[in-house]
């Protein structure tokens, strides 16, 4: 099949960007979207032009590196799929595709379709961990966890941090990402001691990163390649509210023992 691509080209963070028109010829329906771009890039390189820069790594839908807006939909038209796992059979001959990077103030464009998502890393650094030395792995069932809780925690932990939630959100909010990260530890017994402190710190960092707020449009849940539910946002809000209501200032009054 033959496609017409309008790709956002931007030389650097502070450079002006624009759409460039490319023709992708003889595209196989079995190619992934990124393979199609690889082929277009081969052509560009052969002509001495700058290839289109895009993020990718595992190309099997689990690393969270790839991601672009394809005709106004994060990761393209297929639900619960990353761009690398989107295949060209989702398109038809003659389609015209508009390809844009994730757009958010917190995700500055590095080049073309590559954006800087280190804001997510800083949210994780603010509290997305369990700060105890866990030692050697325990026996799998040493800590009893109910199936429902284990399932919920796993659903939240499925977040690969691709940024599609921010990209699809009309407000540019990182609520779904932060909620998933707050919840997957907060649900489990190992994450309980820091549950409320974690919610406070991660939400505070999310706000510092200039993301928008959540208005529960639901677009993030639909865009998420892992199908993470907006119920986790309600859970994060609950943890955050409880944290604000119960937090006390840290003093030395606890004694030195």
């Amino acid at each position: 099949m033959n496609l017409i691509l309008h790709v956002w080209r931007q030389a650097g963070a502070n450079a002006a960007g624009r759409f460039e028109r490319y023709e992708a010829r003889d595209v196989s329906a079995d190619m992934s979207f990124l393979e199609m771009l690889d082929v277009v890039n081969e052509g560009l390189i052969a002509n001495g032009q700058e290839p289109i820069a895009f993020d990718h790594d595992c190309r099997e839908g689990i690393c969270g590196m790839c991601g672009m807006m394809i005709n106004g939909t994060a990761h393209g038209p297929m639900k619960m799929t990353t761009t690398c796992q989107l295949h060209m059979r989702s398109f038809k001959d003659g389609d015209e595709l508009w390809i844009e990077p994730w757009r958010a103030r917190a995700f500055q464009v590095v080049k073309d379709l590559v954006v800087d998502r280190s804001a997510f890393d800083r949210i994780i650094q603010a509290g997305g961990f369990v700060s105890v030395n866990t030692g050697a792995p325990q026996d799998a069932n040493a800590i009893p966890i109910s199936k429902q809780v284990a399932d919920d925690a796993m659903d939240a932990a499925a977040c690969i941090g691709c940024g599609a939630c921010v990209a699809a959100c009309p407000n540019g909010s990182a609520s779904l990402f932060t909620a998933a990260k707050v919840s997957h530890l907060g649900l489990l017994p190992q994450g309980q001691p820091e549950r409320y402190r974690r919610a406070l710190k991660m939400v505070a960092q999310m706000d510092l990163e200039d993301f928008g707020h959540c208005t529960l449009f639901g677009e993030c849940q639909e865009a998420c390649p892992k199908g993470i539910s907006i119920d986790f946002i309600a859970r994060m809000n609950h943890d955050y509210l409880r944290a604000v209501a119960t937090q006390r200032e840290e003093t030395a009054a606890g004694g030195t023992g």
Partner: protein
Amino acid sequence: MSWFVNLYRSTIGKKIIMAVTGLIGIGFVLVHMLGNLQVFIGQDKFDAYAAMLHGPLAEVVWGLRIVLIVAVVLHVLMAWQLTQRARAARPVDYRMREPQVSTWASRTMRWGGVLLLVFIVFHILHFTVGVIDPAHAFHETDALGRHDIYGDVVASFRIWWVSAFYIVAMIFLGLHLFHGAWSSLRTLGVAHPSAHPLKRRISAAIAIIVWLGFTLVPLGVIAGIVH
């Protein structure tokens, strides 16, 4: 009090303020709607109800008014601040972004909210203060010498643009509640987890009841049932 300042400064805190003030508003519109429906009982009942609110219950009504005014001011202020923040969060917009699941109700919250604010101001100036008096009926009294709000309602809604404005505003109120009633509980983190979190039967019921309850009054006047 630093915890409150932190809450106020956070996006979730601002949303919590919007959710709480919004729920106060929902409670108010439900009571207001039930009061309005007495217009179908007749002039005597309706004018007596109005006289009760302005007579023996005046202090209670003023207390509620203060709560409502504070709620509306906070609701609008938070909406304004958060909207500015959302605008800033995406300085370069997409050429193309296709909404997938967001409802029309959710996408009209901001402009619909502005319309509702205009409506609220108009409505207070119209039926409460009487500064806007399109039917020239605000200062009429009924047979018992009471303020004849019933007559004012009938005369006002016989004017086509007054009825049209109220009916359109109530459509947006219904839409606002369809999204707001559902999302406020999620913002407060008290919504029950669901396999289909976008479904909202209770909100749909509240939206339809409020929309219909308010819209029946101008429709009743237009149809000649209330005269």
